């Protein structure tokens, strides 16, 4: 640990594979385009590409050195440009241990140490043995420093393991529900469409395509289009189903004294360690399909980088019954109050909510209706959008307590966010000229999440009441004239409104 060492040699291969996987679509496109031009010594290019990747991988592995000294991780890397990275343990936000398929063949893991901002992705050790990863993890997470010896049991697990206070698992039934209602459906669809647009010329030239068409019963164009769409949707759904299944299969949430550990994944196992004091915010998302079924997912924001690109959102629990949310939050956020009295946008804001969601859709529908002489059923879209606006109005609310803000709003899914006041990076109250006319305003707060931050906002609150939130951030002892004039509004709703499991 205290001298420079290399990673396990498998790092060379796994890095090459990582590159291939990251650029899979580009490579596939290249392959298809290449396969069609026969003048091209095509196989040689592929072989050359792989050889180059391997050489690069080996060179990277050779030039990558790391050590831990005085509780500080020091990484030297780079083939031509040498990069020295020093990482002190008080800067660590999240520790991520992943074992992909290749690493698991050799009993290795990838160790990813995240600091604030997702631009700091360099502090990743591609392949180390599990024992080493655990030791690094222990040293970097220990509070007292690295010198001390911690007893290690026969599995190589440090003895601190028994400090696990509670484990939450994801039952198989709920995993299946999570997978079948997963929101990654749209992403899968778009990837599929991209792929298809690339492959389509090849397929349509091939005899297979004509053969398939011969198989289909004779049909009109409409039926053909509809069946293609149906096939697309089904395939996209299957992709999202299985990808969610593989990502969140074998899910455990362990609560420890100072940190939570999320482990998940069937093929690629991931183990994410987040210290409690690095949680920036927690939000509960109730999707359009999941909410009526009585389910929600819980996410946390960290200043490292999370599951999605650019943000630091990490899935804390992929699917949970609504009456289990508060008991779970009680365990994860023992010092937060869960229930608060809050305020909603006033009744006169409803009109703005309805207009905002319905206006554009209605205009487009009307235009299309008259331009293309569509079926009357198309008018169901504006009706739905009005309903959607009403839902948004119904769900919008803010509440505040001793040291916490609660923001609830809906885009497509209903989001309830718990934000500690001392984690709020900034608060903005904005008022458009129409809102000024109605004496309404919108409130937005930012919390750190990845390198861009994440915002939570509620629109069309009573103007004076919104300033209460700003006053809360200022702290009650520091009231200026302007804020001391505010009267405490009547808080007339209780957030959050989830059903509680009967005890």
């Amino acid at each position, binding site marked *: 640990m205290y001298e420079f060492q290399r990673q396990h040699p498998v790092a060379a291969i796994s890095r090459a594979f990582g590159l291939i996987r990251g650029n899979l679509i580009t490579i596939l496109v290249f392959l298809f385009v290449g396969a069609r031009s026969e003048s091209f010594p095509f196989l040689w290019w592929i072989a050359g590409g792989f050889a180059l990747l391997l050489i690069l991988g080996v060179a990277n592995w050779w030039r990558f050195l790391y050590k831990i000294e005085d509780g500080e991780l020091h990484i030297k890397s780079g083939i031509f440009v040498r990069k020295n990275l020093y990482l002190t343990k008080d800067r660590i936000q999240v520790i991520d241990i992943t074992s992909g398929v290749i690493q698991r063949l050799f009993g290795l893991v990838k160790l990813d140490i995240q600091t604030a901002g997702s631009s700091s992705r360099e502090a990743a050790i591609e392949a180390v043995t599990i024992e080493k990863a655990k030791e690094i993890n222990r040293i970097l997470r220990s509070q007292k420093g690295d010198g001390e010896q911690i007893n290690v049991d026969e599995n190589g697990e440090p003895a601190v393991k028994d400090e696990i206070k509670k484990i939450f698992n994801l039952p198989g039934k709920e995993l299946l529900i999570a997978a079948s209602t997963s929101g990654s459906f749209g992403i899968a669809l778009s990837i599929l469409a991209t792929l298809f647009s690339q492959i389509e010329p090849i397929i349509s030239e091939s005899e297979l395509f004509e053969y398939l068409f011969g198989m289909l019963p004779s049909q009109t164009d409409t039926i053909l289009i509809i069946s293609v769409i149906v096939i697309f949707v089904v395939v996209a759904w299957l992709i999202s189903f299985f990808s969610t299944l593989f990502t969140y299969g074998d899910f455990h949430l362990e609560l420890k004294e100072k940190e939570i550990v999320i482990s998940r994944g069937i093929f690629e196992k991931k183990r994410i360690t987040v210290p409690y004091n690095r949680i*920036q915010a927690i939000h509960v998302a109730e999707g359009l399909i999941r909410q009526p079924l009585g389910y929600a997912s819980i996410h946390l924001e960290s200043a490292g980088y999370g599951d999605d690109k650019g943000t630091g959102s990490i899935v804390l629990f992929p699917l949970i019954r609504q009456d289990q949310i508060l008991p779970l939050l009680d365990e994860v956020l023992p010092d937060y109050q869960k229930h608060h009295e809050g305020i909603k946008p006033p009744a006169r804001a409803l009109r703005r909510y309805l207009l905002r969601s319905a206006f554009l859709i209605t205009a487009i529908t009307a235009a299309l209706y008259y331009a293309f002489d569509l079926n009357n059923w198309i008018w169901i879209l504006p009706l739905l959008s009005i309903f959607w606006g009403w839902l948004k109005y119904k769900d919008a609310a803010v509440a505040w307590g001793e040291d916490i803000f609660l923001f609830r709003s809906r885009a497509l899914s209903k989001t309830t966010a718990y934000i500690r006041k001392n984690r709020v*990076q900034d608060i903005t109250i904005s*008022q458009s000229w129409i809102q000024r006319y109605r004496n309404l305003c919108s409130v937005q707060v930012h*919390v750190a999440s990845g390198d861009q931050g994440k915002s939570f906002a509620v629109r069309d609150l009573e103007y004076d009441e919104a300033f209460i939130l*700003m006053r809360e951030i200022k702290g009650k002892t520091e009231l200026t004239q302007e804020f001391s004039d505010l009267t405490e509004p009547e808080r007339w709703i209780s957030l959050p409104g989830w059903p509680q499991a009967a005890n």
Partner: protein
Amino acid sequence: MKQTPFHKLTPRAIRVWQLGNAIGNLFFFAIPVVYGAVFGTQGFHFWVIAATSLLFVVLWVLSIVLFPYLTWKNWRYSIDEKEIDLKRGVLMKNRTLIPLSRVQHVDTRQGPLLRFYDLASVTISTAATTHEIPALDAVLADRVRNQISTYARLAEEDV
């Protein structure tokens, strides 16, 4: 409790924005020009080009004569040991509060236009967002920057 005073930007900011808009918004005239190059200037197309050109001329003049003044008139900032308070916006009025303990770093910037008028902007970064006080007097900007960084050091906390 004493009310922290709100400051205005320097009136020279108006000049900078006027000059900036006068140059920058010329770009919009490329739209009718390109349209004319593609579709010709006969008949119906002539009226399209004339109408858009007229619209852009009006907007261009307004963006020099009126908008910079309004922006300046609506800008206020205040800085004390606890937080930075920014008020801005003409049609959309915004008020932003940044607790100083959340400030990650603060810097002054000076592009060629600002330098020409001896102005600078102060950029305040938190872990999530970046805010800018545009067009302060260069000396004042340095002072504001130093003041914020002193206050931020006093209120040191992690992310």
